[in-house]
């Protein structure tokens, strides 16, 4: 039926009685036909609506995971809109959540299993049956496993679906088969840098945004909240209305910057130097919070000059005592406290035994020369006078001084984004930020926090369920190392021959670094590649078999991650189109072919019910029965959730460890790390995007990406409504730079470097810092006139952070003259 054939609706006053799919029977199969239900009440004046409202969740990885009311009419999804939270301050949606219908009915959906008919990457396909697809995949996997070991089969998954069951099912199968995995190495600078100071409470953790209203000064570091996390902007706006001062530190003048009381333009990749300099001022003017430092940080801990390790009581001849048994190892722990200096007796004493240990100084104890951890931090900060830091960051001296004073005028919240860490030096801005929060005492109370957008996973699910068939012990290979492993046939000195790759919830050809290297060294080399996706992505096009997997609203799932600290239910709202199947069905078929059927229950609902059975689930009233009432269930206690309120951190010492005794790499790839560099926050130049890099003469522009409001990574690529608003790839440039190149607004330009190129329409825009270019990320390659953005990025990585450095990129740009 076309729109014009639909009979004209009566728009006079009346009440529509919409059928709730939950009330209609509380089963996920309630009706995907969506016919009006006789069960609904009806009055003589109000016609019964044919609409059914299901509960859904917006599940791409923008970090939000917003609950949706999903309207189904005559078996078709016709609208997605915001569903209410039990606490209305969380209610939200964005333009992307409003037009999910287009993702379901997008023209690029994969509707049946397909097998490559031409060369790999040629995008020629033949339709095959599910039986053919499953039998070929199972046969290949089994063959590789038998000949090259189970570790020759690799899985590769990123994000794009916030449900628990599809990932859960795959984890079970791949655990049982002992697949190797590709580690995606995304945005680890925040995690490594800050969590080494505060401990690992989650990959990206801070107080929730509802706490911003309690802050007096809010620093936002490289976080484009108004585009990338629209759903949290209102918390910032509320805080501003309550009197908070908003300070935005960013190379780009974002919509958020336009709302700020103070916009501080900073040279990309220099945030660590600015923070070290702010600490320089704070320390020089004695604005530190000595009480907080003494109680909750390692500031007074003595550090040995010779080893760089904390001076422990055992170094002074005091034997360690036996601590409680570690439940993980079953072995008794050893308690060997750190020594601090008691200035009133001029002697070392055990930590936390005196009220005012020395925060600063050099001492000798038992013949061992030591300094306090704070003295070491201070020595590092001393190097970054505002005058010197100003030359690094391109921030005026007086602004650095002003920022330092604002940072001690609490409560202060530092909200950090993923910009400062997108360079090869990206651990250190967050190590420095954690240190600054520690010495200013701006942690663990209302309005006092340092951290990224809080992104959390409810940890109380019955996750043992996914390990039913065993946990994989095969290698975890960083995506940047994958080409080397394939080329050398070794990993960490041991043989490893990747033969197959199974990709689900991911589009690495589009989103991962150095697309040309990825294609040449991975996608042209691995013998057998399968991609399961709902859309024909760049990655699917480089596969041998493409499996059509269901979209969010086509199967039932539960979502327990995101920024809201709620668990939400996603009903099955409609049937999948064509021959599309949910990932759970795909796993079941693979499991049956491979002899693992017994690991999976007959229905998804059984699994979901079991997954929500645990003490932690019970404690928050979470069960299948309660969640399927349709109201999101909170797991983080009262609002606002404030991190570290008890002042106990998840570090070895329980304190904020701005001095890191034993720094480690995020992921062991057999690399060596510079221990001494990692012990304190440092500034060092990034790998590529820096003016003194000789390469800058050839490629003068730092190329930064942004996460625009018109897509999430490569998702929504073919969403027609969003493409009306944002039809083609664009790149932004400052007018002065554009003029120097002779470009006009709207010209097609080609950004290029030694790794590749990308063509986009030029937006001449004063928001862009001279010397930089900014592009909205992740257009599919066929949407570019030539090249793709990911061709320009690099796989070089820092051995500690082990991260894809998406902005550590230099390019030049020229007018596009045509061609591929």
């Amino acid at each position, binding site marked *: 039926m*076309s729109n*014009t054939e639909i009979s004209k609706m009566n728009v006079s006053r009346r009440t529509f009685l919409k059928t709730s799919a939950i009330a209609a029977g509380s089963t996920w199969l309630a009706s995907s036909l969506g016919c009006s239900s006789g069960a609904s009440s009806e009055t003589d004046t109000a016609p019964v609506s044919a609409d059914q409202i299901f509960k859904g969740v917006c599940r791409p990885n923008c970090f939000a995971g917003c609950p949706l009311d999903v309207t189904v009419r005559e078996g078709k999804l016709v609208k997605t809109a915001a569903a209410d939270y039990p606490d209305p301050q969380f209610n939200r949606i964005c333009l992307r959540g409003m*037009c999910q219908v287009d993702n379901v009915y997008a023209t690029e959906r994969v509707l049946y299993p397909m097998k490559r008919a031409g060369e790999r990457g040629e995008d020629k396909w033949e339709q095959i049956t599910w039986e053919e697809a499953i039998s070929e995949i199972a046969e290949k996997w089994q063959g590789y496993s038998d000949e090259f070991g189970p570790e020759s089969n690799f899985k590769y998954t990123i994000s794009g679906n916030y449900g628990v069951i599809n990932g859960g099912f795959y984890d079970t199968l791949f655990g049982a088969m002992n697949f190797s995995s590709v580690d995606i190495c995304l945005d680890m600078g925040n995690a490594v840098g800050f969590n080494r100071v505060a401990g690992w409470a989650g990959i990206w953790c801070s107080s929730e945004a509802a706490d911003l209203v309690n802050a007096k000064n809010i620093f936002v570091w490289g976080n484009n909240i108004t585009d990338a996390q629209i759903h949290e*902007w*209102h918390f910032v706006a509320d805080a501003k209305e309550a009197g908070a001062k908003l300070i935005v530190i960013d190379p780009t003048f974002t919509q958020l910057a336009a709302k700020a009381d103070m916009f501080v*333009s900073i040279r990309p990749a220099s945030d660590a130097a600015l923070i070290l300099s702010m600490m320089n001022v704070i320390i020089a003017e004695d604005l530190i919070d000595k009480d907080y430092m003494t109680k909750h940080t390692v500031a007074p801990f003595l550090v040995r000059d010779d080893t760089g390790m904390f001076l422990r009581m055992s170094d002074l001849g005091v034997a360690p005592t036996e601590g409680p048994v570690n439940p993980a190892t079953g072995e008794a722990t050893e308690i060997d406290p750190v020594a601090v200096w008691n200035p009133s007796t001029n002697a070392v004493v055990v930590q936390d035994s005196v009220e005012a240990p020395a925060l600063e100084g050099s001492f000798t104890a038992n013949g061992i020369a030591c300094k306090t951890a704070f003295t070491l931090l201070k020595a590092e900060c001393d190097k970054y006078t505002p005058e010197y830091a100003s030359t690094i960051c391109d921030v005026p001296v007086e602004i650095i001084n002003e920022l330092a004073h604002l940072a001690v005028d609490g409560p202060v919240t530092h909200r950090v984004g993923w910009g400062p860490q997108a360079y090869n030096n990206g651990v250190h801005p967050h190590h420095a930020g954690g240190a600054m929060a520690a010495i200013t005492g701006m942690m663990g109370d209302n309005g006092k926090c340092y951290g990224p957008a809080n992104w959390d996973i409810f940890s109380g699910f019955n996750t043992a369920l996914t390990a039913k068939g065993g946990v994989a012990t095969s290698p975890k290979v960083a995506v940047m190392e994958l080409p080397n492993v394939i080329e050398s046939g070794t990993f960490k000195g041991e043989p490893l021959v990747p033969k197959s790759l199974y990709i689900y919830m991911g589009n690495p050809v589009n989103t991962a670094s150095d697309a040309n290297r990825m294609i040449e060294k991975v996608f042209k080399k691995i013998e057998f590649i399968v991609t399961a996706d709902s859309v024909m992505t760049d990655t699917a096009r480089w596969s041998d078999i493409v499996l059509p997997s269901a979209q969010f609203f086509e199967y039932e799932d539960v979502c327990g991650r995101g920024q809201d600290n709620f668990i939400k239910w996603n009903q099955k709202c409609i049937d999948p189109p064509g021959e599309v199947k949910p990932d759970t069905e795909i796993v079941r078929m693979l499991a049956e072919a491979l002899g693992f059927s017994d690991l999976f229950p007959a229905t998804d609902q059984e699994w979901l019910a079991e997954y929500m059975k645990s003490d932690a689930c019970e404690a928050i009233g979470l069960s299948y029965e309660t969640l399927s009432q349709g109201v999101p269930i909170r797991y983080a206690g009262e609002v606002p959730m404030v991190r570290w309120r008890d002042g106990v951190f998840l570090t070895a010492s329980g304190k904020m460890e701005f001095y890191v005794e034993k720094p480690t790499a995020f992921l062991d790839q057999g690399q060596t790390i510079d221990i001494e560099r990692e012990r304190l926050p440092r500034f060092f130049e990034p790998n590529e995007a820096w003016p003194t890099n000789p390469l800058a003469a050839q490629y003068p522009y730092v190329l930064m990406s942004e996460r625009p409001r018109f897509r999430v990574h490569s998702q929504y690529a073919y969403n027609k409504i969003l493409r009306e608003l944002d039809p083609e790839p664009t790149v932004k440039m400052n007018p002065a730079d554009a003029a120097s190149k002779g470009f006009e607004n709207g010209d097609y330009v080609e950004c290029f470097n030694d790794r590749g190129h990308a063509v986009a329409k030029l937006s001449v825009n004063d928001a862009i*810092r001279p010397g930089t270019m900014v592009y909205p990320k992740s257009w599919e390659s066929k949407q570019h006139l030539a090249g793709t953005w990911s061709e320009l990025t690099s796989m070089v990585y820092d051995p500690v952070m082990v991260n894809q450095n998406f902005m550590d990129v230099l390019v030049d740009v020229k007018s596009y003259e045509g061609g591929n």
Partner: protein
Amino acid sequence: MTVKLGMVIDRSRCVACGTCTTACKVANNLSDDVWWNRVVNEMSTERDAPEGTYPNLKMSTHTLACQHCENPACVSVCPVEATYKREEDGIVMQDGSLCIGCKLCLDACPYTGVRTFVEEPKWHIDFKMGDENAAEHVAGTVEKCTFCAHRIDSDESPACVKYCPARARAFGDLNDPESDVAKKLASASKKEQLKVEEGTSPSVFIIN
């Protein structure tokens, strides 16, 4: 006192995200390339581009749709009374069944771009999307924002107000001092109606 429906858009909260424009498009099942509500960058015709020289910049935005004027320029020029003011609440309506597509209203309206002449509405999805009771789209007629009349008549807020994630919009009876819209207007540090010099007296206020 008569009901006078109006809207407030808070410039200090609007971040040009486009959720309201998309909500409007979806709720009203607007045909391809038709938008009744759009984001206006007050500083530049370029999206997200500020005024000034880096880094001394400023940028502000609001959204623009039919202003539902007290004295609408469109109503008096309509030869067939397809454009009319609803007596009960002051909404300016456009009746697709009467409109002859002469576009006189389009020329008369001082608010450029708020109405669209739709020659032949086309959709990229071949079934009706959006609100069940959204008005029909008729070929060869002029369309515009109705303040989501179909939603108001079902006691719901206009889609752009209901779904604004910034809480930048308020809607209600301007004549009722207890309404959200009146309260927000009363507490605004500054308020502005677009193109007051035209004498149209819009029911949409841009505040702060």
